[in-house]
């Protein structure tokens, strides 16, 4: 049986044309090398000079980089009354409000060959979906969202702006990647062309800037036009397995990419793989808000979130005005707990989620 199946696979693949790939690979490989070197050099220049002339005057950890119009609403004082979570496998959202929960099933299926990817808006009211045809946005009520941006070349990942007004989506063509900012209401879009090597792209917590890149090539911070680009120091995740040990023996630590950046750029969330073996097929972070390593870029050290009876935190969203809404696991019950920390990482509010949200990841996070 194995032989027949193997023969069938070989027969199917036998007609594939062998094309000359070395020249293109060398070109791209050189560009990747160059990007990495350029990022390193730019950081060195920025550190030496303090500023980078002609680009954003943004330094990690520079509190003055906070936008002036950050008001009281940007400072979170309590966990929202209603939170919507995303099933980590499949197409169900779980809305929890006042201790009651209900499930919202999207009209998609695991068996679809185009494997649509979806995200919940920060307020939990809307949903975005990228399928093979393009980007759809609509009300999160189980109906099929409407197509707002038709483009068959979109990468599947997407990220809502913190104010829920825009969706950031990648466009993958060949070896080139663009970023597209799509207005959630009008579908209007701005394209940031050729962003280079990119394993993740996200907004800063106040939504004023974008950060994209990858752990090897380095990161870029930019305004939403993409014209004022600068290198961004996202910190280095610790290679000490002890920092990622949650009762599991660990000998591999791999940075999967940046998933969150505080408004002032001081704190950066990274999704990290750790385990006993080399990472492989499931390299993607399980959540847009995965935060296995929270790095203080001013010190380069891993910052620790700590709350009573919480075993570990694995997801986090930065508040625009400082503070962190984090999600971890209760050490006794094994159920998820959401904890709101202030800007000094002191606990302000705690929510024990209960059974309803097991096997889910963070979705909404604003009131």
């Amino acid at each position, binding site marked *: *049986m*194995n032989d*027949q*199946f*193997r023969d*069938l*696979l*070989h*027969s*199917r*693949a*036998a*007609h*594939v*044309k*062998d*094309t000359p*790939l*070395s020249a*293109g*690979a*060398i*070109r*791209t*490989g*050189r560009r*990747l*090398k160059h990007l*990495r070197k350029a990022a390193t050099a730019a950081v060195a220049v920025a550190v030496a000079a303090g500023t980078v002339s002609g680009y954003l005057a943004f330094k990690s950890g520079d509190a003055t980089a906070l936008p002036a119009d950050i008001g009281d609403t940007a400072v979170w004082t309590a966990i929202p009354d209603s939170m919507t979570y995303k099933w980590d496998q499949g197409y169900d959202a779980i809305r929890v409000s006042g201790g009651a929960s209900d499930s919202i099933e999207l009209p998609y299926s695991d*068996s679809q*060959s*185009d*494997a649509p*990817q979806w995200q919940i808006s920060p307020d939990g009211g809307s949903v975005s979906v990228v399928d*093979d045809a393009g980007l759809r946005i609509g009300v999160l009520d189980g109906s099929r969202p409407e197509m707002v941006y038709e483009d*068959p070349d979109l*990468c*599947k*990942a997407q990220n809502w702006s913190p104010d829920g007004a825009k969706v950031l989506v*990648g466009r*993958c063509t*060949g*070896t080139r*990647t663009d970023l597209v900012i799509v207005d959630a209401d009008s579908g209007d879009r701005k394209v940031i062309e050729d962003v280079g090597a*990119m*394993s*993740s*792209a996200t907004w800063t917590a106040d939504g004023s800037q974008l950060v994209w890149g990858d752990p090897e090539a380095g990161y870029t911070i930019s305004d939403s036009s993409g014209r004022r680009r600068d290198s961004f120091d996202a910190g280095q995740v610790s290679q000490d397995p002890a920092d990622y040990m949650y009762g599991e023996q660990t000998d591999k630590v791999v940075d*999967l*990419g940046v998933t969150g950046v505080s408004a002032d750029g001081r704190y950066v969330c990274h999704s990290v793989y750790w385990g*006993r*073996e*080399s*990472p*492989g*097929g*499931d*390299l*993607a*972070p399980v959540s847009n808000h995965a935060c296995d390593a929270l790095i203080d870029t001013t010190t380069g050290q891993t910052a620790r979130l700590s709350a009573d009876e919480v075993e570990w935190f694995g997801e986090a969203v930065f508040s625009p005005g400082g503070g962190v809404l984090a999600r971890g696991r209760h050490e006794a019950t094994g159920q998820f707990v959401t904890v709101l920390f202030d800007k000094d990482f002191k606990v302000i509010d705690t929510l024990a989620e209960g059974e309803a949200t097991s096997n889910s990841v963070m979705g909404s996070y604003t009131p």
Partner: protein
Amino acid sequence: MPPVLENRAEGSAIDVGRIRGTTDRIDTEFTDFVHSSSASLLRAAFLLTGDQQLAEDLVQDALARTYRAWRRLERSGNAAAYTRKVMYHLQVSWWRRRKVAESLTDSPPATAASGRDLDLELVLHAALLKITVAQRAAIVLRFFEDRTETETARILGCSQSTVKTRTRRGLEKLRKTVPELEGILP
């Protein structure tokens, strides 16, 4: 020009020739490596992506990263394994998660070679695209590349039990989707 910069400029001028020679050597070695390995990589990539163009993109991406790491790989003589691993990882990467071909854009030659069952191949092709990327990767490695469970686990970076589960679930789905494969599937 400040003395320090003068020295750097001189150093650069001296280094250029040496670097250029090293780069030429690397390019030649790398090109030889691509010539010897691209056909098998493309065939596996075709089964992973379901499309010739996507397969070429995927292999080229993997090769570009191999080129970037060539000096390190050259020492360990491990370029082929590295490229293969990168290719499988890229296929399921996050922002650059590739879409598989929705339609059968790459039809086999109109005249089939003797012994080929084109209908069955096409049905299998479509069915492969309906299982998850991770399941497809496990099946391609196990039954197209004839990798053991241990080797598959190493390439995919997961445990052997995960490989077993992915393979079993993938085959179950194929069996369900394509009843004609009954008796052929392991």
